[in-house]
Structure formats: C-alpha cells, structure tokens
C-alpha cells in the first residue's frame, strides 16, 4: 500500500519535487513539469523585471502546481530570512526551501548561517525545508530546531555527480524523524532511484531534467525512477552474497 508523502501535516501528491531553474523557455518547462507529475515546485525570488511579465508564476497556476519559494543566492542568515519573508508576502505561503550557500564555486551550504537562519525562520512561523550538507549531525541539529524536513545534497548543485556519499544519506534517513528529501546532484534516473532505495522520502531536482537534451523525457524517467526506488525500498531487497545461489532446483 502506498502512503502519501506528508510534510508538516500537508500531503504532497508526488515524491518527485521539481525545480524550475535551467529550462530554456517556459514551453519546455511546462512539458517537463507535466511529464514529471510533480505537485510542488521551487521558485526563486529576484528583482521584478517589467519586461519579464508574470512568467513562471502564471505557468504554475495554470498547471495547478504548488509553489515552494527558495532563498537561492543568499550567503548569510540575515539575507535568507529577509528573502523568505518577502516570498511569504509575495506568494502567500509560509513554506520555504532554505538555502544559505558559502560560495559560487561549490554552492555548498554554510552550516553556521544555515542553522542560524533555520532557527529564526522556525521562530517566525515558517515551515522550513533546509537544503543541507550530507552531514548526519547537521541534519539532526536542523530537525531539533524544528525544521519540517531535511534536504541533504547528493552532490553539489548542478553537478550531476549523483550521490557521492550514500552511507551518509542512509545514516541521515536512519535517524531522522522528519521527511528526508535528496536535494541536488542528481544526474540521471538511477541516481533518483538510489536516493529512494536508501530510504529518502522524496527527491528534489531541476538541472538533470531542465538541461537534459529532452527535458520532458528525462522528467518521465525521473518520475518512474522515484517510483521504482520507492517500491524497491519497501519490497526489501535480497542480501548481497559473495557466492552464487542457484535459483532453479537442484538436478
């Protein structure tokens, strides 16, 4: 029996959460989002450009996909808190994907600023989903602060390197009492399946789909991979054996 992903008491219809970054145009993005089956999608907050118009917001409304604003580009807790507050005001949601990165070269989370921002936002009534390092202790600290989920990276944002430290992801899953969402680093479908086989509750990705040669087809692949990994985890895989074990009766 499939259970539904629930974060902070809210049911999320898809275990594949999409980002909208990287798509060449809105038509490509729309086709990819439809194919992904996603019901929750990230957006970034940037200066209003009169030439750009409604753009992605109109598209997501049309598709009936819910918004998860992020704090991408923020380097300090103060910047991230203000960006989250602006997103809440603009988009009427108190959910936020909290990103506080250290530099452009790695885009890795700055754990000190991240914890500070998470604490302030939880205190301010936000439902905080932090993008975090694949560090089990940091994940535990974020959960203890009241975050609604933890979102460890598989590899740096946009790198497509897959899950570099599966053991750490498994450790985070083992100890977490909130949903674990593998966020960042996914390159192809097998990476998404592995995340789910490791016990993650969902996968968040953008680049792997939006910058693929055929984004809609890759979105389909990711949807199926997340589903496959989810079922494989629950089915209980066979133990790995050093030697062969015949699957046909002996002669």
């Amino acid at each position: 029996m499939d259970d539904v992903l629930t974060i902070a008491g809210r049911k999320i219809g898809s275990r594949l959460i999409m980002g909208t970054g990287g798509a060449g145009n809105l038509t490509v993005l729309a086709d990819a989002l439809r194919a992904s089956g996603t019901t929750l999608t990230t957006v970034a907050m940037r200066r209003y450009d009169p030439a750009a118009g409604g753009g992605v917001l109109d598209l997501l409304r049309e598709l009936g996909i819910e918004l998860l604003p992020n704090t991408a580009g923020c380097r300090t807790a103060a910047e991230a808190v203000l960006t989250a507050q602006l997103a809440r005001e603009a988009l009427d949601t108190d959910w936020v994907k909290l990103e506080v990165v250290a530099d452009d070269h790695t885009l890795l989370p700055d754990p000190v600023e991240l914890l500070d921002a998470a604490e302030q936002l939880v205190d301010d009534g936000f439902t905080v989903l932090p993008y975090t390092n694949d560090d089990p202790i940091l994940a535990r600290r974020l959960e203890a602060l009241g975050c609604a989920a933890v979102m460890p990276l598989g590899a740096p944002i946009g790198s497509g390197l897959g899950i570099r430290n599966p053991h750490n992801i498994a450790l985070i899953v083992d100890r977490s009492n909130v949903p674990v969402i593998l966020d960042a680093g996914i390159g192809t479908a097998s990476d998404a399946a592995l995340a789910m086989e490791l016990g993650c509750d969902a996968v968040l990705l953008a680049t792997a789909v939006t910058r693929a040669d055929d984004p809609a087809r890759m979105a389909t692949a990711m949807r199926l991979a997340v589903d496959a990994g989810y079922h494989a985890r629950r089915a209980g895989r066979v133990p790995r054996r050093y030697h062969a074990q015949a699957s046909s009766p002996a002669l």
Partner: protein
Amino acid sequence: MITVNGEHWHADPGLTVADVVARLTDEPRGIAVALDGAVVPRAKWAATEIPDQAQVEVLTAVQGG
C-alpha cells in the same frame, strides 16, 4: 533621490510604496517590497511613504531551484 532595484529614481515628497509598485506594473500579484531591508506588507503599501535616500527592493518569483 531613492534607489529602486538598484536604479536611482527621482522621488517627490509623499511618494508611497504603492506608487513605486504602480510605476513598475499594473498587475502586482506575486510581488513583495522591502524598504531599507524590511518587508512592507501589501496592506501598508498605500500608507508607507518612502524617505529620501531609501533603498527599495521590489521582488517577484522567477524560475529557480
């Protein structure tokens, strides 16, 4: 003089946040405003005058993440 999204604007006394938003767009859905680093709630746009030298940021959601 005030700064709106990094650009210098001439500002008459009494200019409000609502005036600034109206100059940028007539469809202010999905928009939020920060005045000198603090959020101005939509309900207060019309009543919030912008002081000289203020920094105004007008943001919306774009593709990302």
